[in-house]
């Protein structure tokens, strides 16, 4: 599979490395002669010096037979124009643009770039996955030699547990709801038939191993805010 990469910076370098390791054919188009020299030393003759937006350069690169055209420079306008030239003048089947400013994603897609990769958004998504949307707050760790602690979890709007009675929940073992603070700040000692409502704050005893499961039971189904 023939891949043309525009931009021989860090992203272009590691992309080329990866594609070459997988046995694909690669050509890097880079404007800066010094970078070209460095890339040639590393990868051999898979580097073309020139402007990846120029028709003549892409012609020389053999863009007409490329299956993937990937523009990964640090300038969104260059990535946009390079992909548009490749797509419309060389009919490359797949044009992929790196987006540096996430605000540009809608316009890239609207004017017909097949795929965009926004490094900023990718990193943000990973961080969001790592951060629970409805955090569990550790209130207290009991110091009696056991690993038990007291945590607080808010029941979010739309959670599956809303409208269900405490005794019907499958809470992980060991964990025990100690107190429910209703909206408006009224604390209630929970009984087996206490009904859960959205925005209830549950104070519960749990162990470090079960804390995450407890959070999941109480928040699953919620619309992420």
């Amino acid at each position, binding site marked *: 599979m023939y891949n043309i990469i525009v931009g021989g910076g860090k992203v272009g370098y590691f992309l080329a490395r990866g594609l070459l390791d997988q046995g694909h054919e690669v050509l890097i188009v880079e404007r800066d002669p010094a970078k070209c020299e460095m890339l040639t030393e590393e990868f051999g003759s898979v580097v073309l010096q020139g402007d990846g*937006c*120029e*028709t*003549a350069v892409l012609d020389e690169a053999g863009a007409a037979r490329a299956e993937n055209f990937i523009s990964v420079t640090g*300038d*969104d*306008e*260059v990535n*946009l*124009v390079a992909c*548009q*030239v490749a797509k*419309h*003048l060389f009919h490359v089947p797949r044009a992929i643009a790196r987006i540096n*400013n996430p*605000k*540009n994603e*809608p*316009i890239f897609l*609207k*004017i017909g770039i097949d795929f965009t990769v926004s490094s900023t958004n990718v990193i943000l998504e990973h961080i969001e996955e790592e951060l629970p949307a409805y955090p569990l707050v550790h209130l207290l760790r009991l110091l009696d030699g056991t690993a038990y602690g007291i945590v607080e979890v808010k029941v979010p709007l739309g959670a599956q547990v809303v409208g269900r009675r405490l005794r019907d929940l499958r809470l992980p073992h060991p964990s025990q709801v100690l107190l429910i603070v209703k909206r408006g700040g009224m604390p209630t000692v929970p009984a087996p038939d206490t009904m859960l409502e959205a925005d209830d704050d549950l104070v519960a005893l749990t162990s470090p191993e079960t804390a995450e499961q407890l959070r999941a039971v109480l928040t699953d189904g919620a619309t992420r805010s």
Partner: protein
Amino acid sequence: MNAIIMGCSRTGSILAGLLASEGHQVTVLDMNPNAFRLLPPDFGGVVVVGNGIDEDVLRRAGIEQADAFAAVTQNENQNIMAAQIARHRFNVQRVVCRIHDPSREQLYESLGLRTINPARVGAQLVHEALLREPATAQAEPPRSG
């Protein structure tokens, strides 16, 4: 007419002066605040510092109320991107984009942008001037004394 000009280059500043003197509402956009020195001293329009490929800057320049957008910076790719944002995202009716490269000029004309190629226009004017029948008075060669 309410016009936004991106790039206070020589072209941009002359264009801004022309439109403003005709009574149009003009906003000039440039990344370099010093560039606005090129504007005529009596320029009555608005200047905004910022990059026209940033939607927030375009909003600040009033693109949502603009009837016309001209992208005339020295950076061809920025002109192309900004013109497409103005046309396709903000639905500005009259969008003109300066492109020097003839093959890209053709491509973006076919994709619906109005493009101006200063090199081509300049060459045509010089061409016409060269082929014009010389006026007799001008045809006299300077006499060497």
